């Protein structure tokens, strides 16, 4: 194609060619050294240049943490007092109480207490000390709710009181079973 150019076109083409410059050997070495160094190094700037990538990564981390925490708490929800996981169970319950509203908090305490009373009945025949500790801890939760009851509105008090009564029945059933196991022992 080049040999089909008119003289004027050829002159323009030559000027265009002279606009650019070739790299010297030194330039080439310098550039390639810099490129190799940069390519070998991690590229955090590129990786996080787009904000959505950062948001996605942060979301993923949060999800992993939440999923992990929920998994751990779920795994410890049935832990018995003689297990190291029982402390985690207690800590998880306290965490839920911290973020709950006042009335929800009292209902949660009752729920935690009833879970312990039911569990105490299940283990009473084979692990008496665990059953006793479960009943004691459940009773403590109910005592706290009774103390805090007056800080709730009248409607909320009625609602929580009904649940307290049911939990009281569970507590009595657990204590009865523990006593029976004691009598049999």
């Amino acid at each position: 194609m080049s040999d089909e150019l008119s003289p004027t076109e050829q002159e323009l083409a030559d000027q265009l060619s002279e606009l650019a410059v070739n790299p010297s050997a030194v330039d080439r070495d310098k550039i390639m050294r810099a490129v190799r160094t940069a390519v070998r190094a991690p590229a955090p700037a590129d990786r996080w240049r787009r904000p959505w990538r950062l948001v996605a990564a942060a979301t993923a981390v949060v999800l992993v943490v939440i999923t992990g925490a929920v998994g751990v708490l779920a795994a410890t929800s049935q832990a018995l007092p003689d297990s190291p996981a029982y402390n985690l169970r207690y800590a998880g319950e306290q965490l839920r109480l911290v973020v709950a509203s006042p009335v929800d908090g009292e209902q949660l305490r009752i729920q935690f207490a009833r879970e312990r009373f039911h569990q105490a009945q299940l283990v009473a025949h084979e692990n008496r000390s665990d059953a006793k500790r479960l009943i004691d801890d459940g009773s403590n939760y109910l005592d706290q709710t009774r103390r805090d009851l007056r800080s709730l509105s009248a409607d909320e008090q009625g609602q929580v009181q009904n649940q307290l009564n049911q939990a009281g029945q569970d507590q009595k059933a657990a204590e009865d079973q523990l006593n029976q196991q004691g009598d049999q022992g």
Partner: protein
Amino acid sequence: MSADELVKRAKNGDSQALDALLERHLPMVYRFVSIRVGREHADLDDVVQETLISAARSIGSLRAERDGAVPAWFLTIARHKVADHFRRTPERTEALDARAATEGPDVQEIVSERDRGRRLRDAMRQLTPEQEEVLVLRFVLGFDGEQTAAITGRTVGATKALQHRGLASLEMLLLSQTGEWR
């Protein structure tokens, strides 16, 4: 080793192949960047480096199925890096112009030479993108007609027509600027 083989190996994590691929295209990228930012520009090396680093990091995105795809891919990255460069540092010429007004003929000659280059680059930017692309490929980077057609994805005839129209427009633009361009 052929460019296709280099690309294939580089995409599979062969660092030596990647290195060879970058080094092979460095002169083309350098000439391309030099015509855009100016051959004396202090940032010329930096823009070339940024282009090659970006190419290395995005080698996985290179699709080399058709002829000319590899140089076209490098030039696309280079074009973006040049645009980034101009966003960061708009062209400045005042300092040398001021020196030329007070200093001797050497500086005036540099300014005059540089002005000719600047006028030509300015005129190139006023062409259609298709015309500019063909002229750069043909006369700055030295690709022949068939290679230019392959890189741009056009027929040889269409490339030839763009080349002639581009040169004619360039001549008219330069004449309208100064009354003469030689």
